[in-house]
């Protein structure tokens, strides 16, 4: 594959493939693959958020179980995603369940860590003040803790989203789904142009998602810290992820 020399041609080939109307029609069209990839990643993220956000908020709120979160996030970084995918694939078969489950497992730690760290970073004095003037626990949660925690919380979702998009690509190795299929199809037929086309699409998709989350995060920062300069957006993410 990709012999030295005519390498620029490979990019030309990839772009030609992407621009070819034939690639965008039929059962295995690029548009369909993109939708598949997005829907799959979105569903994983939703499930991970539905579990991880409430759990993380609870841990940050009560301070109980923080050791677990820290161990989980640093441990999760060491676990190779491909290993997790293949073992789930062997155990659960070639359906979509194996990659789905593996991805939820991978997405949980950053979501949990973001929610936990966000809520924990809220000044105790501010919460005490809110309670002292008679805000109910629910009002404290929704009116004080969540808005103030949101930049870090969204940072965790952002790490998880990138992790999921990345690993969803690998998931095509064990289950026929998403943009990874272009890559593995190209690999099988020794068509580097198609592999490259798939790779460029995934990279583009990841960048778009990254930029969207960045925007959401700085909007949340402006709300949580209206006058200071926006929080350095990379902080929450430095802690977790393994593309």
């Amino acid at each position, binding site marked *: 594959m990709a012999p030295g020399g005519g390498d620029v041609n490979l990019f030309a080939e990839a772009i030609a493939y992407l621009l070819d109307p034939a690639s965008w029609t039929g059962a295995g069209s690029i548009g369909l693959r993109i939708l598949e990839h997005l829907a799959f990643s979105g569903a994983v993220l939703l499930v991970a958020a539905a579990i991880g956000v409430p759990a993380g908020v609870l841990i940050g709120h009560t301070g109980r179980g923080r050791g677990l979160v820290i161990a989980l996030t640093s441990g999760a970084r060491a676990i190779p995603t491909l290993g997790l995918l293949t073992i789930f694939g062997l155990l659960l078969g070639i359906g979509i369940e194996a990659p789905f489950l593996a991805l939820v497992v991978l997405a949980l730690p950053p979501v949990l860590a973001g929610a936990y760290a966000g809520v924990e970073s809220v000044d105790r*004095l501010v919460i005490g003040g*809110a309670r002292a003037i008679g805000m109910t626990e629910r009002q404290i949660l929704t009116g004080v803790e969540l808005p103030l925690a949101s930049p870090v919380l969204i940072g965790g979702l952002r790490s998880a989203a990138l992790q999921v998009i990345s690993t969803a690509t690998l998931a095509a190795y064990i289950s026929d789904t998403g943009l990874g299929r272009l890559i593995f199809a190209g690999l099988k037929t020794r068509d580097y142009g198609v592999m490259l086309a798939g790779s460029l699409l995934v990279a583009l998709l990841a960048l778009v998602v990254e930029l969207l989350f960045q925007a959401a995060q700085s909007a949340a920062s402006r709300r949580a810290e209206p006058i200071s300069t926006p929080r350095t957006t990379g902080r929450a993410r430095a802690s977790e992820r393994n593309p």
Partner: protein
Amino acid sequence: MIEFASVRKEYPGGSVAVEDFSLTIPSHAVAVLVGSSGCGKTTLLRMVNRMVDPSSGTVSIDGVDVRSMDPVKLRRSIGYVLQAGGLLPHRTIADNVATVPVLEGRSRRQARKDALGLLERVGLDTALADRYPAQLSGGQQQRVGVARALAADPNILLMDEPFGAVDPIVRDQLQTEMRSLQAELGKTIVFVTHDIDEAFALGDEVLVLRKGAEIAQRGTPAEILANPADEFVASFVGAGSARRTLRIREVGGRSVVVDGDDRPTGVLAR
């Protein structure tokens, strides 16, 4: 009237913050609980608005046991001022002051309008209304904290070391203003501090507390200065120190008051 009847507070794990405390604070009076950190004074304060419930004994307001009241309603009916204000950093000054009235169902517009009046009352320029807490000085934040506590027009104000985080000059100023505010409003105030001078400056009645919130002495500032009950109180108020033992020297026909080191501190008024 606030009444503590044999209250005791033991935290899980066995540490006892309050051993056995009884006290009646008459309406419209300022009672100052003073003691070093960890003596249980803040715990006592928080029992009044049920941030802490006593392990045994009762706290009652105008004869009603606070435990029979809903904590959230109780807290909204009592003003609470914390150190450094405890303001919500993501809301403007006016919104901070308007928080409780809005929670109580008043229109945001009306609450914000009332907030401006309160800001003036505590000596703040209403131009600050749309700023955020982090844009204000410590002293200004503290004033906002007081304005917020007054927003629901409570009869009772609880103040937890409210001026502890500001520098001495601003603290003096805030104390003076608080005295004139109280002369005007006549709230029942429970004030917690570790600073005996602040206690003497503000309290109608001062309670010097030892560990476990045991009352070492209770009295007006003058009574405590004149006759410290024991060694502990004497050393806490600094009785016998140069600063507390003043004498008069005649200079140029005026009576100058000097301290134990002969440093002049003022003249007797004519």
